[in-house]
């Protein structure tokens, strides 16, 4: 019998096979394994005999009480979670509104205001038409800057 097969049989707990016993006597390594398994099996057998502790008085009542709490908890958690989300969304919307109020009215939508200033000062438009180096496009820049350019232009004249 080969050691591998003997070890497998020993592991499964069959020591009584005469072939196994003969092999174990002649092979020190398998003998050591057999002794080890014997110790472990005895230990397991003894552990199996140990009785679990007795259930204490009122186990079922305590369980039912804990069940009641455990069942309530998920619904409370759900409400809490939903409430928290509502608060987050409200805060986000408030923040967006505040940002939009605080931000300057520039960009394409705010361009109308600049045009009005330029229309109010027609003489600047004339000056800018005379401006050299193609600065005629300054008709579209804000009034202060346009004024400076016009002054420069007059100096050149």
């Amino acid at each position, binding site marked *: 019998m080969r050691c591998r097969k003997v070890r497998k049989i020993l*592991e499964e707990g069959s020591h009584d096979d005469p072939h196994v016993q003969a092999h174990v006597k002649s092979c020190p390594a398998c003998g*050591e*394994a057999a*002794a*080890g*398994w*014997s*110790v*472990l*099996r*005895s*230990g*397991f*057998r*003894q*552990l*199996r005999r*140990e009785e*679990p*502790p007795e*259930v*204490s008085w009122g*186990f*079922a009542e*305590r*369980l*039912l009480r*804990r*069940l*009641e709490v*455990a*069942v309530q908890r*998920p619904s409370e958690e759900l409400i809490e979670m939903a409430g928290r989300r509502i608060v987050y969304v409200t805060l986000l919307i408030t923040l967006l509104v505040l940002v939009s109020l605080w931000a300057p009215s520039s960009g394409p939508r705010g361009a109308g205001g600049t045009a009005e200033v330029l229309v109010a000062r027609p003489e600047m438009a004339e000056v800018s038409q005379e401006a050299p180096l193609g600065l005629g496009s300054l008709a579209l820049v804000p009034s202060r800057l346009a004024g400076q350019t016009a002054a420069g232009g007059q100096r050149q004249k």
Partner: protein
Amino acid sequence: MANPHPEARQEIELIKRCQKGDREAFGSLAETYRRPIFSLVFHLVHRRDEVEDIVQEIFIKAFVAIRGYNFQSSFRTWLSRIAINHCYDYLRRNRVSRITYFWQMGEESERRIESGGEGRKPGPHGHEDQLALADLVDKLLARAPVEDRIILTLKELEDRSVEEIAGISGLKPSTVKVRLHRARKRMLKDYKKWRRGG
């Protein structure tokens, strides 16, 4: 399940009531399965003072999850699965505090093993020897990886069949056999290491 026994029919009825949220029905189920779950948890965690608390937590988890029970496996197997998963988490959490070092395993066990002829023929102090062996195996189990501890407990202490273990763990029976073999081998190796003095 065409014509089940009256007990089985009653159990199905109780489970269906639990699935509708009936706590009293669950109390009856817990009463029926209290003992096997106590035994399983005790063998797995081996701490008398904590068993009851853990069992209660397992039953609570089972009640919360019972709507998902589809009668595919037996209720005992389903409940055992919850118990195993819960104990797995517990053992993982408490692993560091449970580890027993070789030097803690004591010379007493060694002496008893020597005198008891490796446990084959108990001497005049046979019972004490057996207790020492149980203590030794318990410590070896505590040193083992949690997966090994669970599979060895189910097989060696709870005496469950490979098929039952497969049902509980959701593994194939062939995988259970392989894992059991590895766990046993590792335990024997650990035992030999201890015998040689760590």
